[in-house]
C-alpha cells in the first residue's frame, strides 16, 4: 500500500498570533512556523502503518512557499520516504489545495491519503472532504482509530454523539483527529537521513491547476480584549458587583 500524507506549514501553535495593523491578515514575519499539529498526527499514523508492515511507501506533500520544504523534511525525518512540494507564493484556499492534492494523487496513485482534520491557521476543515469528493473516493473524517479488517479499513470517527465506526474500501481519504495517536519526537540521526531523501518540486502550472482564490478576505482583526478578573473580599461585594457592574443578577 502507498500512502500520501499532506503536511502544511503554519504559525506555530504556541505563538501568540497577531493581526497585521492594516487588517489584511496575520503577522508572519519573524514568527516561528511549524508543521500543522493535525498533520503531524497524520504523518505519525502513516509511519505506524508502515512499521506495522501495512504500507510500503509514504509520500509527504506540501503546498506553498519554498520554506515548506522544512515541513516536508520534518515528515521525512519522522519516517516518510520522499517528498513533493508544489511551490507557489500565491494564497491557497481549501478548494485549490484539494485540486492540487488531487492532481498529485493522480500522478502518485496512492491507496490512502491521510490529512489533518484541519489546519490550525484558518481552521477551515474542508480540504479532506473536498479532496475525497474530487477523487470520488471514500472518506473517513475525524479519525481517532484506523484498523484494517480483511480488505476494509475501519475508521473510528469522533462525532458529536460519541464514536462512530465506518468501513471504507480503498482507495480512501482519512482526516486525522487529535486522539488518533501521539506523534513521536524526531531523532537526530533521522534528520540526517531525511536530508538525503528525495524531494521533488513542482509548480501548480505543471499540474494544470488554477489556484486563483475564490473567496475574498474582508478584514482580519483581533478579538476584543478580555477584562482581567478581580478578587472580591466577601459575598456581599460579589453580589453587588454581579448586580451593579456585570448586570447578570
Amino acid at each position: 500500500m502507498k500512502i500520501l500524507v499532506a503536511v502544511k506549514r503554519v504559525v506555530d501553535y504556541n505563538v501568540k498570533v497577531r493581526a497585521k495593523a492594516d487588517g489584511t491578515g496575520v503577522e508572519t514575519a519573524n514568527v516561528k512556523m511549524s508543521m500543522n499539529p493535525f498533520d503531524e498526527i497524520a504523518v505519525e499514523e502513516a509511519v505506524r502503518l508502515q512499521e506495522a508492515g501495512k504500507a510500503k511507501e509514504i509520500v509527504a506533500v506540501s503546498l506553498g512557499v519554498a520554506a515548506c520544504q522544512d515541513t516536508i523534511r520534518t515528515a521525512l525525518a519522522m519516517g516518510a520516504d520522499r517528498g513533493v512540494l508544489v511551490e507557489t507564493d500565491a494564497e491557497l484556499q481549501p478548494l485549490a489545495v484539494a485540486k492540487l492534492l488531487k492532481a498529485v494523487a493522480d500522478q502518485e496513485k496512492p491507496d490512502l491519503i491521510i490529512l489533518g482534520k484541519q489546519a490550525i491557521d484558518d481552521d477551515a476543515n474542508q480540504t479532506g472532504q473536498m479532496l475525497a469528493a474530487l477523487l470520488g473516493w471514500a472518506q473517513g473524517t475525524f479519525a481517532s482509530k484506523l484498523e484494517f479488517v480483511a480488505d476494509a479499513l475501519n475508521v473510528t470517527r469522533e462525532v458529536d454523539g460519541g464514536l462512530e465506526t465506518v468501513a471504507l474500501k480503498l482507495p480512501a481519504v482519512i482526516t486525522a483527529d487529535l486522539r488518533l495517536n501521539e506523534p513521536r519526537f524526531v531523532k537526530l540521526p533521522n534528520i540526517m537521513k531525511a536530508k538525503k531523501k528525495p524531494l521533488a518540486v513542482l509548480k501548480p502550472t505543471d499540474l494544470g491547476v488554477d489556484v486563483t482564490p475564490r473567496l475574498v478576505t474582508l478584514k482580519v482583526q483581533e478579538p476584543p480584549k478580555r477584562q482581567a478578573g478581580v478578587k472580591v473580599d466577601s459575598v456581599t461585594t460579589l453580589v453587588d458587583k454581579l448586580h451593579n457592574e456585570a448586570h447578570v443578577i
Partner: protein
Amino acid sequence: MDMQNPPAPETVALLDGIRAFVDPAHVRTDPDSLLNYGRDWTRFYTPNPLAVVLPDSIEQVQQLVRYANDHQLALVPSGGRTGLSGAAVACQGELVVSLERMNRILDFDPIDRSVTCQAGVVTEVLQNFARDHDLYYPVDFASRGSSQIGGNIATNAGGIKVIRYGLTRDWVTGLKVVTGRGDLLDLNGGLIKNASGYDLRHLFIGSEGTLGIIVEATLKLTRPLREPSVMVLGVPDLDSVMSLYHAFRSQLELSAFEFFSELALRHVLKKGLHRPFDGETPYYALLEFDNPEQASTDEALALFERGAEEGWLVDGVISQSETQAKELWRLREDISESIAEHLPYKNDVAVRIAKAPAFLAEADALLAQQYPDFEVLWYGHIGDGNLHINILKPAAMEHRTFIHKCEAVNDLLFQALQRHGGSISAEHGVGLTKKPYLHYTRSATEVGYLRAIKQAFDPNGILNPGKIFDR
C-alpha cells in the same frame, strides 16, 4: 501556638495591636492559613506560626516591622512558599508576613527595558507581562506559577536559563526594602551604573528574609529567543555528560544545559509523559539554543554525529515545534513535582564545572555505598555546575528516621564537596535545612562578618531568626 486551641489572651492583645493598622480581615489565625503559610515546599517541620499578616502597602510593612521591634516579635517574610530549604517556614510561633497582596506591576519603561513591581508579583505574571511587550524575563523554573519576585530575590533564584542569562541577581537594577529597623531603603534606583559606594542592593539579594523585607523591585528585561530548539540526548555515563557539554558549548550559544538520570525520568513517565526515544540510557541531557530558521541545526547534527562516533552520545531527539520543545522541557521540569509524594531529601550542590566530573564520580560512589537501599535521583542545572541530589523515602520508613539517615551521610558528602571547592547550596538557600552545614562553604571568620551585617540591619533579630545561622 497550638492550632487546635484558641489563642492566649496575650496573643489576642498582640494581634489586636496589629489589627489597628492592618485590616483585621488580613490578620489571620484560622488553622488552614496557619498551616499553609507556616510552611514552604519542605515537609520536615511542623508549621506553628502565631498568625499570618497580609499587608498591602510599604507603610504597613514598616509599621509591622516597628511593631515587631517594640514587642520582640519574630517575623517570617513569606513569598510563594515554594522554597526548598525551609527558609519561609514558621515553626516557632513567628508572625508570617505574606507579600501576596502587594502584587501590582507599577511601571514599565520600554526605553530602559525595565519593569518596576511590588514584591508579591508572581514570577510567571512578570514573565507574561514581559512577553506581552515583546520582551523576556529570563529567570525561569518549574515553580514560576507560585513563586514571587520578592522570594526570587530573597533566594537569588537561579533556574533553567542561568547558563546564558545568569541568576536573579543579574536582573535586579533597583530594590526597595524595609530593613529590620523599619527603615525604607531605596537602592540603586534602576541604574545600570552606579559607583557611589557600597551596593547594598546585593546584600539583600539572597538574604533569605534575614536582613529586610523586600517591597518593590526594578528588573531588567531582555530580548526573547526567536526560535529556541530543544534537544534531549541520551548519554551513557556521567563523564560523557561533560564531554557533551564541552563540545556543544564551544559550538552553540546554549540557553540551557540540564541533565537527569533514567531513574528520575521514570517518575515523570509515570505521570503520563512519553520517553523522548525508544530505549533507555542511564543519563539524559537537555539542551536549548536559539535556532531561527534552523540556522544552527547543521552544527547540532555534526556535533551529534561526533558524539555518536566518540561514544559520549547514544541517541537523541530535537524539537520540531514549540509544542515539542515544551513537551521535552517537561521531562526535566516535572521531575520535582513527580517525586514530591516520595518526600525526597534534597541536596542542591554546586561545583565549578571543571571540577564536576571528579566530584560526581566521588559522590556517586559515596551515595551508592551509603544508601544501598534508597532510590537516589540525580538531575540538575549541570551547565552551571549545579546538581540536585534527591533521595526518595522508602514507603515503609518513618519520616524522621529517613531524614536522620540522610543527614548522617551529609557530612561525608559535604566533605567531598569541600575538597572540590563546592557549595552546600547552589540556589535553594540555607534556610533551616542546610544551616548545620554552612561551615563547609563559609569559614568561621566569614560567618562572623555575615553576623555583623545582620546586626547592622536587624539589631533586635526580629527578621527570620534562626535561618541561615543560629540567632
